[in-house]
């Protein structure tokens, strides 16, 4: 789960009126602060045990500040340094709020945790936690919380703070919100948050609140370039979700490196059980698609899968049977294979609506591919496909170069915005086309025929991004239609 660094968590808490230790964020050196001593705390997303890692330092003088600040700012992924006032603390407490998914017999909600044992040492605290469950629709009030706190001078202040934490947790739909320690100040008994962190779901970040949760690159953490690419087109084309995670491990010597695609959520598990525990097959990635992806988006996803280096094979299978048209997916696979610079043998299984037609269409289309292809019926499961990998690679012939029928370039004849695509029409080829199969293949009558030019955009109709027109054009027409599907640029 993405984690929020302290300074962003403080901002969330402050928006709900939760008191935090006064501090200022320093993003460059040299810098000055109002007074000493202060604690300098490097702000690095996901960093834990900051004290022992030297990321939290007490500073007593301007000279010390000048010496330490540049070092902290130079740490990897450091977003700045928080200079927080050093306080006269009487007592350190612990508080956290965590999401509880519930069960068949218990409602989901929040769990507020509190302990008199704040500061470092989670093990010592585990036995002393007070737990207060609450429904997300009604976070606990200070009065309710006060009844669960010890009778101490700071009780009311702590109850206010805990109630503010619960409100913050609910307002921003966090999974974890932790304040450790909470400081009870000597003298007035006020309670403040000294240090804090949060975890959240990307899906819970509302439009307009993205900046509160840090930069996209920080949220991405250790994401690879291709993972960020998939994330980028998930955001720009939100219909349906593509999940893509590359394997951080290393293949065993001699292992077949397999790029996988469109396995489905259950299929991801199925695939894992087919290759897990064996060292002769190395899955380069996990993948999943869910929801109503267009073929345009499936194509983009497959291009990312095929962009993985050193793949020996592409294995495509749905998780079982998909509700999405397998014909559309067949067209997406064909197009991605045709346009990807990566040419590797391909194993494909279709499962779901029109699976037999999809398989037949893909086999016809595969004649235009450079890569050797083997298709499977839906009754052949991924485990059986995996078992046949070695044999297939031994039997597969060499790749053959085939020039694309209509390379992209120039000004497109027309475009669609959602899902995004540019239609190029080779007028000379289309003028000779008598069958005009692209028109019949379009399920929404988005295409009309412009005499002497070829397919054009029909007024009032929309493109669903199914790619059936382009596939039909190649199979039964003049190969004059090409849909350019741009891949997002990522850092």
């Amino acid at each position, binding site marked *: *789960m993405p984690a929020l660094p302290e300074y962003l968590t403080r901002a969330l808490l402050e928006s709900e009126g939760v008191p935090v230790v006064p501090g200022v964020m320093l993003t460059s050196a040299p810098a000055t602060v109002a007074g000493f001593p202060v604690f300098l705390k490097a702000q690095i997303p996901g960093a834990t045990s900051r004290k022992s890692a030297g990321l939290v330092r007490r500073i007593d003088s301007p000279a010390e500040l000048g010496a330490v600040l540049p070092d902290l700012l130079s740490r990897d992924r450091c977003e700045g340094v928080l200079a927080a006032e050093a306080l006269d603390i009487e007592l350190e407490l612990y508080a956290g709020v965590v*999401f509880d998914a519930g*069960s068949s017999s218990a409602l989901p909600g929040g769990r507020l945790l509190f302990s008199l044992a704040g500061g470092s040492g989670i093990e010592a605290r585990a036995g002393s936690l007070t737990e207060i469950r609450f429904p*997300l629709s009604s976070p606990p009030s200070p009065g309710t919380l006060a009844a669960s706190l010890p009778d101490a001078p700071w009780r009311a202040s702590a109850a206010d703070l805990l109630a503010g934490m619960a409100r913050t947790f609910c307002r921003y*739909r966090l999974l974890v919100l932790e304040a450790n320690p909470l400081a009870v100040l000597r003298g007035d008994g006020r309670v403040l948050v000294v240090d804090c962190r949060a975890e959240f779901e990307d899906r819970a970040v509302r439009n307009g609140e993205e900046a509160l949760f840090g930069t996209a690159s920080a949220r991405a953490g250790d994401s690879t370039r291709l993972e960020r690419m998939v994330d980028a087109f998930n955001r720009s084309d939100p219909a349906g979700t593509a999940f893509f995670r590359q394997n951080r491990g290393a293949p065993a010597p001699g292992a077949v490196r397999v790029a996988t695609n469109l396995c489905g959520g259950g*299929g*991801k598990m199925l695939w*894992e*059980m087919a290759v897990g525990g064996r060292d002769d097959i190395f899955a380069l990635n996990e993948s999943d698609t869910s929801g109503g992806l267009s073929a345009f988006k499936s194509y983009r996803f497959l291009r990312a899968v095929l962009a993985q280096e050193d793949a020996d094979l592409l294995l495509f299978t749905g998780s*079982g049977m998909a509700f999405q048209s397998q014909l559309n997916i067949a067209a997406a696979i064909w197009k991605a294979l045709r346009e990807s610079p990566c040419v590797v043998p391909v194993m494909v299984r279709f499962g779901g609506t029109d699976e037999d037609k999809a398989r037949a269409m893909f086999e016809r289309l595969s004649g235009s591919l450079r890569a050797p292809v083997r298709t499977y019926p839906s009754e052949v499961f991924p485990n059986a496909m995996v078992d046949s990998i070695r044999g297939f690679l031994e039997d597969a012939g060499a790749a053959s170069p085939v020039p694309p029928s209509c390379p992209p370039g120039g000004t497109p004849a027309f475009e669609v915005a959602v899902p995004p695509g540019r239609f190029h029409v080779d007028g000379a080829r289309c003028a000779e086309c008598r069958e005009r199969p692209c028109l019949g293949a379009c399920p929404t009558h988005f295409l009309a025929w412009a005499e002497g030019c070829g397919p054009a955009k029909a007024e009032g109709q929309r493109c669903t991004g199914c790619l059936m027109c382009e596939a039909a054009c190649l199979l039964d027409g003049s190969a004059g239609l090409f849909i350019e599907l741009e891949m997002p640029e990522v850092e």
Partner: protein
Amino acid sequence: MAGILGHLAGIDDPGVVVFGITGKQGQSTTRVMTGYGTRVLAGVTPGKGGQEVDGIPVFDSCADAVSAVPGLNSAVFFVPAGAVLQATREASAAGIRFMVHTADGVASHDAALMREMSVEGGFRIVGPNTVGMLDTSGCLFGLIGGGASWARKNYLSGCVGIISRSGGLSQLLGAFHCRPHLPGPLPGGGYGELWGDTGPGVSAVICVGGDPVPGTTLLEAALAFEADPRTKVIAGYGETGTSQENELAEAVAGGRITKPVVLFLGGRFTEAGVSQSHAGAMIRCEAETWAAKHEALVAAGVTVVDRPDAVFGSVAGVLGLV
């Protein structure tokens, strides 16, 4: 029609309103549902009240639809993830008692609030992130089958109740129990035909979805099949994350589920703490691991298989077909 919905939500005669009916997926899936036999009586799209989709009247709000169309008690939603919670509130306030949420990417807090609302309000939610539910007595809610004729051809009446956290495996486990002469691993070893011209068929398919907070859990779906007289065997797909399989094991061990259960359990090699394509499959504690669930299920008497095609042979064995 007294189908699985009667046991899930106390509804014997579902009348459906489709939220987002004028959108691309709403329109196409409504055709699948009506083509399968589902009584879709109304649609809701704010700002498009007064229109029709395939003769189905569209209203600006669910309250308007319920006022104008008698018999509405169920809803299928094709709305963006961020709008799901509000749509649930609207449907609940209008008196809808069964809801299917297909959206992926619903925030866990929203799903939790929906679950809270449904339990306290006495209505039933399936999803989010589900392909829906299909009853072979002629009712389809959501996306299962992809096409009406495909669904009719591939999902035939029978005695197997399907529960699953995966859309693809929901559909596969349902359809393959209906395929004639299906080959697969035999219970006693070897590989061969599991049945002849007629498979065991399915009573219904319930996909509970892959999210951390399902509106209906695997156990609740299984209990509906336990009460369904058509169902002789419960078969399905479970995985790591959440406590759903653990609860199912407890229910089988405790005698709340007495019908045989066959489960393909995924995630044997899933690492704890790593995000999964199913958000609900992420392992957050020891009890959510494959090993812990496997142990609990086997100890309870559930037949747990490690490959999906082994489900069919196990079911055939239970039914005495092989």
